[in-house]
């Protein structure tokens, strides 16, 4: 299997997200960065599939030059080829991102042959546009299903499972196919020391993609106004149990 995974570099926030003075971006002065969680699982899934069935994994990202860090991380856990589409701006809108990724994937496939499987995260952790994978799949004329938490590779098709309330939906999708995966499909491995060292030497291709902005334009980011209510402390330790159950009775959940 030849598999391509699209990932996004995102800030790793804790309890609070701050915004830059111009309102256009998350203030990352005191934050680390990570691979968007669904996509970290997509990389792991691709590596597991290739370990079981043979083949190679290419990881593609569109982002700032620093996104090389997330590509190298992917290499440290088993990805073979790394591709960066560099951008100057904080973020591109979803249409523009999809157009650039489509052009890049088409370029790689023209030179090296088609991928059997393209994996995206269901949505990015930060912007959450819920559409880039679908747009790319449509532009390439390939089937796509989102929300995938299980993949079995068959002969000429993949069986994909999508979590719904209380169970799974099953899809049988012919390859070449595109899947939007969700965290929980696997538990991503940590890189080994050997993997880390090898990732530093992995070849990284940089592909510029001149594209035009789409119809959605960011004006500013802001934090939602929270209804701050005073927290009522019911007590300390197990002695508070009676007060807790009073509250539960009041809420009608003891019935």
């Amino acid at each position, binding site marked *: 299997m030849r598999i391509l995974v699209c990932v996004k570099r995102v800030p790793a*926030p*804790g*309890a609070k*997200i701050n915004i830059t003075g111009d309102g256009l971006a998350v203030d990352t002065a005191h934050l680390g960065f990570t691979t968007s*969680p*669904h996509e970290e699982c997509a990389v792991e899934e691709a590596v597991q599939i290739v370990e079981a069935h043979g083949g190679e994994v290419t990881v593609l990202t569109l982002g700032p030059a620093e996104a090389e860090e997330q590509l190298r991380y992917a290499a440290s856990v088993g990805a073979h080829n790394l591709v960066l589409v560099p951008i100057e701006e904080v973020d591109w*809108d*979803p249409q523009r991102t*999809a157009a650039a990724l489509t052009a890049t994937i088409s370029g790689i496939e023209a030179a090296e042959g088609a991928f059997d499987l393209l994996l995206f995260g269901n949505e990015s952790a*930060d*912007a*959450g546009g*819920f*559409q880039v994978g*679908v*747009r790319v799949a449509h532009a390439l004329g390939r*089937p*796509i*299903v989102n929300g995938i938490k299980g993949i079995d590779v068959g002969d000429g098709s993949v069986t994909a*499972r999508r979590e719904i*309330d*209380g*169970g*799974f*939906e*099953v*899809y049988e*999708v*012919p390859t070449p196919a595109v899947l939007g995966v969700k*965290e*929980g499909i696997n*538990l991503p491995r940590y890189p080994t020391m050997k993997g880390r060292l090898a990732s530093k030497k992995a070849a990284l291709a940089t592909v510029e993609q001149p594209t035009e902005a789409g*119809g*959605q*334009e960011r*004006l*500013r*980011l*802001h*934090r*939602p106004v*929270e209804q701050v*209510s005073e*927290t*009522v*402390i*019911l*007590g*300390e*330790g*197990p002695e*508070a*149990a009676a007060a*807790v*159950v009073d509250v*539960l*009775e009041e*809420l009608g*959940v*003891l019935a």
Partner: protein
Amino acid sequence: MTMLVLCDHDRGTLVDASLEALTFGRDLATRAGVSCEAVVIGKGAEEAVGQLAAYGATVVHLASHEVLTDFGPEAWGETLAQLVASSGASIVTACGTDRGNEVLAHVAARLDEPFVANCREVDPSDDTWSMTRAQWGGSLLEDVTLAAGRKIVSVAHHAVEAAPASEPAVGTVTAFSPDLDASLARTVVTDRVVLSRGITLATAPVVVGGGRGVGSAEAFAPLEELAAELGGVVGCSRAVTNNGWRPHSDQVGQTGTRIAPQVYIASGISGAIQHWVGAMASKHILAINTDREANIVVRADWAVIGDLHKVIPAITEEVRRRRS
């Protein structure tokens, strides 16, 4: 001019989120000066139309085709895109559920239009719309403008409360037969696996949550007991699933399940953004934590300061004592 509201259903049972979409849609339609029409797609659709007029649908489009045996993102997207073209609709909306956002993304890709997901407020007074949408699962908001011939937007789930229209609309039911290629069956659901028939995390009236502070897989047993006593289920934070203590299907958060119980009892959970956005739709939150300054304690309605391993069994015991 027309707005189309995609109303999702599960084999003939209308999904509650569809009523949020209609509530949002009919208000937006009024302000944009267009009619509000519902779209229900596929097998069983005719069984799901009952409430749509009461929620403001002047017309209900029932789309059927032999490919549409069950949910299929491509087939649904193609169907809706064709209806947009044939009806001349200028606005398309849905609730920002997994399915809603997915189908609208397909519509947008097919019509080559932008798609703005998870809006909370939309101002349609100018040709270019101004809107506020959710980022980071709703913990950050983004003001954007939308310049497009046809406006495709989803409303963030739980952003509006579903409410019937002050006067019911006519709700004329009309059939729509899309022209679908048989190949679109490639992404239609082929089978379903039921894992649990009882209460689920997304619908439970009570969720007892545990975080890193629980300490181990075994230490979740008292949380299970309390949840069972209250007719609820156990949820957990991302740290817990990353440690392998609970399956990912129990995870509450941005990359897990969004819960909306009557009460969320969050124990040993600090309340990082990732977790908070999955819990913030809870009607009430009761935190149990040793740290009075923990994010979840500050945002909770009530809190008990103490060790969950002692507090939770004491609550269970008190519940049993009052029942007996």
